[in-house]
C-alpha cells in the first residue's frame, strides 16, 4: 500500500534559524530589497543622455509599467508622485514571490504572514495619512456620514464604509497575498510528495512507477503557473495600494 504522509504545516513553511531569529524568510526578504536597490542604483548611475542599455532598460521598463499600468489607471496625472512608493512595493513583493519557484530556495517569502501583514500596515498608514492630509477631518466624517446617500441609509453605509476602510482593506490586502503564495507553495509541495511517493513506492505493481510522470507533469505546469501568480499578486497588491491612495485623496469618486 502507498504510504503518503503529508508533513505538518510547520515543516513545510519553517526552517531552522540561521542565527537567533534570523531565518531563511528574513534572508530572502533582505536579498529582495538589496537586489531591488542595487538594480536601481546601477541604473541611476548611467548617463541619462545615452540610449539605455542592459540594467537601465530593465529599470525603465519597471518604472514605465508602474506609471502606465498602475498610477495612470488608478490616480491619474496628479498621482505620478506616488510612482517611487508603488515601484518599491512592486519590486519588493515581486522579488519576495519569485523564490517560491527558484530551485533550492523554493519558498516565497510572502508565504509567511509577517511580510504581507507588515506591507499592509504600511499601506494602511499611508492611505489614511493621505486621506487626512487632503481632506482634513472631513475624511473621517465623510466616511462615517456620507453626504451623497439618502439620510435613512447613512448610518448603515457609514458603518460599512468605516469597517471596510479601517479593518477589512488591510486585512484582505495581507490575506490575499499571503494565502495566494502559501496555496501555491502547498500545491507544489503536494505534487512533489506525490511524485516522490509514486516513484519510490515499495510495491509489486510495477505500473505505479511510470505513473509518477503524471504528478511530475502537473508539477511542471504548476511551476509555470506560479511564475504568473507571483507577478499577478505583486501587480494586484500594487494596484490596490494605488486605488486606496486615490480613493483616500478624492473620496467623492
Amino acid at each position, binding site marked *: *500500500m502507498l504510504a503518503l504522509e*503529508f508533513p*505538518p*504545516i510547520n515543516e513545510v513553511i519553517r526552517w531552522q534559524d540561521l542565527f537567533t531569529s534570523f531565518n531563511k524568510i528574513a534572508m530572502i526578504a533582505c536579498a529582495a530589497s538589496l537586489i531591488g536597490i542595487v538594480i536601481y542604483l546601477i541604473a541611476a548611475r548611467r548617463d541619462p543622455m545615452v540610449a539605455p542599455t542592459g540594467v537601465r532598460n530593465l529599470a525603465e521598463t519597471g518604472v514605465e509599467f508602474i506609471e502606465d*499600468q498602475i498610477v495612470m*489607471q*488608478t490616480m491619474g496625472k496628479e498621482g505620478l508622485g506616488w510612482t517611487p512608493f508603488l515601484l518599491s512595493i512592486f519590486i519588493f513583493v515581486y522579488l519576495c514571490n519569485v523564490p517560491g519557484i527558484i530551485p533550492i530556495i523554493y519558498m516565497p517569502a510572502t508565504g509567511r504572514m509577517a511580510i504581507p501583514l507588515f506591507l499592509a500596515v504600511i499601506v494602511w498608514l499611508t492611505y489614511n495619512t493621505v486621506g487626512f492630509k487632503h481632506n482634513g477631518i472631513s475624511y473621517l466624517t465623510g466616511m462615517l456620514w456620507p453626504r451623497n446617500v439618502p439620510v435613512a441609509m447613512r448610518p448603515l453605509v457609514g458603518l460599512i464604509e468605516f469597517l471596510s476602510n479601517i479593518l477589512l482593506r488591510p486585512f*484582505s490586502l495581507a*490575506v*490575499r497575498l*499571503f*494565502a*495566494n503564495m*502559501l*496555496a501555491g507553495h502547498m500545491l507544489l509541495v503536494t505534487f512533489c510528495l506525490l511524485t516522490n511517493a509514486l516513484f519510490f513506492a515499495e510495491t509489486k505493481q510495477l505500473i505505479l512507477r511510470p505513473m509518477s510522470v503524471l504528478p511530475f507533469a502537473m508539477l511542471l505546469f504548476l511551476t509555470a503557473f506560479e511564475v504568473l501568480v507571483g507577478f*499577478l499578486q505583486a*501587480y*494586484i497588491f500594487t*494596484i*490596490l495600494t494605488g*486605488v486606496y491612495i486615490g480613493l483616500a485623496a478624492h473620496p467623492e469618486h
Partner: protein
Amino acid sequence: MESLAGLIAQTPLTADDQKKANAAIGAGFAYGLAAIGPGIGIGYVVGKAIEAMARQPEAAGMVRTTMFLGIAFTEALALIGFVVFILLGL
C-alpha cells in the same frame, strides 16, 4: 486487498483521533464551500470582461485593469476559506 483488510480490522478511534478526523472533515467542507461562490463570481467577472473587450477592443487596457481588481476582491473570499482550511486541517 491488504488495505481492505486494514479497513475492516480497524481499531476503535480514540477521542483525540475522532477530534482530528472531525477537524479534517470540517476543513475540507470549509474550503470546498468557500470555493463555490468565488468560482462562479470570477467566471462571471472574466466572462463579462472578455465580452466588453471583444465589443470595444480600444478599451481593453482599462477593462483588464478593472477585471483584475474585481478578481482580486472576489478571490479574497476563497482565500479566507483556504486560510480556515489551513488553520483547521493541518
